């Protein structure tokens, strides 16, 4: 779609699916490694992975929705 002569960004289906695959994979990973770690620091790895997942959702699913006028 064009607006004022500029083409604006529409997320590509393949990108979206690849992000989804990563998200599922990271979920599997976070469950697998949740046993590892020591005491109170066992939160760190799952939290980091959660943040990566959140970042993926924000950057690939939400960010394209903040493109300019259209």
């Amino acid at each position, binding site marked *: *779609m064009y607006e004022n002569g500029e083409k604006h960004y*529409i*997320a*590509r*289906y393949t990108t*979206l*699916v690849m*992000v*989804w695959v990563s*998200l*599922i994979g990271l*979920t599997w990973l*976070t*469950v697998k490694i*949740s*046993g590892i*770690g020591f*005491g*109170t620091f*066992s*939160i760190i790895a*799952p*939290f980091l*992975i*959660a943040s990566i*997942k*959140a970042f993926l*959702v*924000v950057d*690939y*699913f*939400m960010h394209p*929705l*903040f493109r*300019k*006028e*259209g």
Partner: protein
Amino acid sequence: MSYGIEHTAHKDYTGAKIGMWLFLFTEFFLFFGPVLLYTIYRFRYHAAFTASSHELDLAIGSINTAILLTSSLTMAVSISALQRDRTKLSLWMLAATFVLGVVFLINKYFEWTEKFSHGMYPGGEALAGGPPGQGVFYGLYFFLTGLHGLHVLAGITAIGVLAFMVLKKKVSAADHVRLENAGLYWHLVDVVWIYLFPIFYLVR
């Protein structure tokens, strides 16, 4: 008859986005409060939190996580499709998102009732005798997943309404900011769960 000012039909796409972003910002702070409490209590009651976390159904939790992630995908595809004027695909994807959301809530229902039947709820007999950390864990668990569940319900409703509007062509390739805003909301609900999942189900 409109009682307001008769505006020229000037739609501010960017303004609508800013408004939605601000609203999401408030939702972040809404969940931030109890998550902050969780963090503090986890340090205080580490052993009880770990034990209680083992009692949650990891299988349902993981499946629900996958369900919400998938629903985010279908939502994103739905929007992408509508932007390309592929209305039919968009509607199917919206329907899929809706169904996935409903399944999430149904799973939650089974998960919760399972706990209730064993007296594992605030005020229930099984918790009454347990250590204080266990009670706090379950209190936070039910409160946060309950609050999240209400947001899922609101999101499902919004998706239903949007699907109807797409059908009626009120939301289309030419004017779809409302679908995008609903998508933003749905992704936020997903992100919240991305954090809730490890903090409740994966405390080891």
